[in-house]
């Protein structure tokens, strides 16, 4: 049961950071890992109860992503940490409303809870929504595992005038109950203690939940029979066995199947069922169980919750909803938010850009002046600094975009938009919920592909996966900013940016319709969705999300992009045609004036580039792209972009700085403006907007769609669409200008 994700160094660090003063005897010496088994805890709860945030609070680490809509934790997530010399191994399961869920992520939770080995369940519930949360709690209780109930958001409940009698709740459920607030940290330490104690206990507490009279009658009957026969199954009490048998616990039936006692039990169970069927006027035992649970939850809530009428947070949420979800203003408000986001991305992102840009080029010149070897200098200045610098330039834009998306995700607004747009989306053969992965796709396509798992219908999911690439990810942003910045004034550039994203989204919708009609026909998924209460994310949470994304971007710039820049530099400098260089050098020497000299230098440089490896590759595929107005440089940049979209900009940076002999225009923007026309630029933007996302996203796509062949379809689908639309754009703009 050791936990592989923990490494000794981290345990030490975390411990010191969080609980510097506690009295671990071997604090500074050997790590705690040796010889100790971790307590393995399955963290279960409904969506939007703050599970991930609680993990953050418990572990003191910031490794979990938290969001206020279902689908943030799409796969189970493991977090390890140490507390009072005990190692904890938390498995964060995706939020599920019920164990018998149907979405893929709900199945992940179910599979884990039923089949994996763990010490106890930590059931997290939202104190402001206890009754509904108890429905899952009751199901979890029937798993007959050790369990602790954490009443999260207890501070919010208090503000809402809700008071929960934990002692009474403990008595009714038979498990430990504790109030916590992941946000303020209240009760977190105590919860850890309780988890520790419960895990160490020899025996499990037994649930004391009482069903309706009809069911209780039958349960007592079955239990009595089992007792009389001296029946005993594992650690279960005979009442627990009776509950499992009566409500068709498949796993229990499989286990008891060969037990001789079953022969006598069957008639008893048939009678019991009949009785319950008549009582409930239904023959669906699952439905009956759910109805029983609902009644129990209602009863418990009535007993333990003391509340003054309507919770304040609910009233507030409904007030805000009356504006944000307004019949007529809802959609315009949403569009305004999106527009504002892209305006901010461009406007504020552009502020530090000139500084960064000039800092990078003067840094390049500065470094270059120390290196005497021509080749080495070219590698470092024109290759590494130009390539990585071109990507670094866009960090401010990326940060703003991520703040915006994080706000959308964490406040609960996203589900509202799903509601507002469902009617519209449905017409295009999409599900309102598709909106969530689609917006995530504006940040990064990889998590977006995974977020599509919230969709239950396989067809809805595949359509969403296929059109997700049309939502331009953050890595494509630098390309757009570069080109719009070069060809449009600052005033309209933000609008153009918004237009690019919106037209990508619209194109996605149209393509969804096409796919729905042509390829994926059939039933669509019902739309039933919770609209969680509005919650402002804590600054810490926001900071964490943005920080980790920005750090990821920088890391990529320092590793992958760095390597790619060096490769591109090499491929654009070699092989060197010495005879060509010599013949030009002779010509240059003979040249009479400066103008002729620089003209000859330019000629030499571009000839050298053309004969380089990269030039050869670009030239050989240029024919395919030339109808779109792309020269071999743009062609190479696009091809390199298949690896990662950041590489497009860094490739352009290297290609144009190598081929550029004119010292007066240093920035890539200016160089681009000189080298290509508006039609080409727009055509290039369109192509980038549509063609295949990066290698990482493609790999995830294969996994999520369920086969490599889907990637082939996606490649053909996107490339064809990109080519055709770029061709149209190029020719239309050519005609107009």
């Amino acid at each position, binding site marked *: 049961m050791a936990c592989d994700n923990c490494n000794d160094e981290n345990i030490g660090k975390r411990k010191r950071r969080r609980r510097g003063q506690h009295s671990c005897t071997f604090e500074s010496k050997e790590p705690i890992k040796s010889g100790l088994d971790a307590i393995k805890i399955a963290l279960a709860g409904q969506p939007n109860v703050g599970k991930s945030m609680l993990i953050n609070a418990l572990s003191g680490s910031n490794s979990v992503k938290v969001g206020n809509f279902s689908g943030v934790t799409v796969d189970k997530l493991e977090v390890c940490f140490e507390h009072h010399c005990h190692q904890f191994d938390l498995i964060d399961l995706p939020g599920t*409303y019920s164990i*018998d*869920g149907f979405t893929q992520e709900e199945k992940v939770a179910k599979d884990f809870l039923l089949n994996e080995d763990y010490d106890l369940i930590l059931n997290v519930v939202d104190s402001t929504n206890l009754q509904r949360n108890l429905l899952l709690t009751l199901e979890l209780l029937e798993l007959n595992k050790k369990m602790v109930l954490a009443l999260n958001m207890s501070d919010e409940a208090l503000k809402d005038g809700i008071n929960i009698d934990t002692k009474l709740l403990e008595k009714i459920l038979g498990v430990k109950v504790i109030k916590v607030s992941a946000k303020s940290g209240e009760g977190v330490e105590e919860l850890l203690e309780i988890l520790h104690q419960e895990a160490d206990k020899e025996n499990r507490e037994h649930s004391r939940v009482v069903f309706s009279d009809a069911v209780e009658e039958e349960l007592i009957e079955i239990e009595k029979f089992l007792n009389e026969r001296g029946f005993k199954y594992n650690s279960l009490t005979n009442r627990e066995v009776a509950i499992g048998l009566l409500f068709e616990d498949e796993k229990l039936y499989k286990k008891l199947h060969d037990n001789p006692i079953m022969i006598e039990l069957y008639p008893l169970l048939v009678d019991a069922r009949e009785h319950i069927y008549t009582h409930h006027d239904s023959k669906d035992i699952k439905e009956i169980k759910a*109805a029983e649970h*609902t009644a129990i939850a209602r009863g418990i809530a009535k007993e333990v919750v003391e509340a003054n009428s309507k919770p304040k947070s609910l009233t507030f949420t*409904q007030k805000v909803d*009356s504006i944000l979800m307004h019949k007529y203003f809802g959609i315009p408000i949403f569009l305004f938010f999106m527009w504002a986001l892209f305006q901010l991305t461009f406007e504020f992102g552009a502020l530090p850009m000139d500084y960064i840009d000039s800092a990078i080029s003067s840094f390049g010149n500065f470094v270059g002046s120390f290196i005497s070897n021509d080749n080495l200098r070219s590698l470092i200045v024109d290759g590494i600094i130009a390539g990585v610098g071109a990507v670094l330039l866009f960090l401010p834009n990326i940060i703003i975009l991520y703040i915006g998306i994080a706000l959308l995700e964490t406040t609960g607004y996203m589900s509202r938009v799903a509601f507002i747009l*469902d009617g519209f989306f449905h017409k295009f053969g999409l599900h309102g919920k598709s909106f969530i992965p689609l917006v995530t796709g504006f940040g990064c396509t990889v998590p977006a592909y995974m977020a599509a798992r919230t969709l239950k219908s396989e067809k809805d999911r595949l359509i969403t996966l296929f059109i997700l690439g049309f939502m331009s990810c953050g890595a494509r942003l630098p390309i757009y900013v570069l080109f719009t910045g070069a060809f449009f004034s600052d005033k309209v550039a933000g609008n153009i940016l918004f237009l690019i994203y919106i037209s990508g989204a619209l194109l996605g919708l149209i393509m969804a319709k096409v796919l729905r009609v042509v390829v994926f026909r059939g039933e669509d998924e*019902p739309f*039933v969705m919770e609209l969680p209460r509005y919650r402002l994310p804590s600054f810490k949470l926001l900071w964490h999300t943005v920080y980790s994304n920005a750090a990821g971007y920088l890391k990529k710039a320092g590793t992958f992009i760095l390597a790619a820049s060096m490769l591109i530099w090499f491929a654009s400098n070699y092989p060197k045609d010495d005879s060509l260089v010599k013949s030009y050098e002779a010509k240059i020497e003979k040249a009479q004036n400066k103008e002729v000299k620089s003209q000859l230098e330019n000629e030499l440089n571009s000839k050298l580039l053309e004969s380089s490896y990269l030039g050869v590759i670009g030239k050989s595929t240029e024919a395919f792209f030339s109808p779109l107005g792309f020269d071999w440089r743009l062609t190479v940049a696009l091809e390199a972009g298949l690896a990662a979209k950041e590489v497009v900009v860094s490739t352009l940076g290297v290609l144009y700085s190598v081929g550029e002999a004119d010292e007066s225009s240093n920035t890539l923007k200016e160089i681009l403006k000189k080298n290509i026309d508006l039609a080409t630029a727009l055509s290039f933007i369109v192509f980038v907007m549509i063609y295949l996302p990066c290698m990482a996203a493609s790999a995830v796509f294969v996994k999520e769609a369920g086969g490599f062949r889907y990637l082939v379809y996606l490649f053909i689908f996107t490339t064809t669409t990109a080519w055709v639309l770029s061709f149209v754009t190029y020719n239309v703009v050519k005609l107009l200008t």
Partner: protein
Amino acid sequence: MKLSELKKGQKAIVTSVEGTKEMKQRLLSFGLTKGAEVELIDYSLTKSNIEIIVDTTLLALRKEEAENIEVEKK
């Protein structure tokens, strides 16, 4: 009457939930069962979706789903 036929602001008690097994299961997990009290909060622009409140949970449904839920006006 059907849940989809309620007017804005009307409250009702659920009398039965029909539909496919999955659909029923989904609704049940939100506490939308016989005897639950619901209130219709609002319709979307095209009336294709409705927003209701069950207990203290705000729920969004499509009209087709709401047609599967029988209610009795309070």
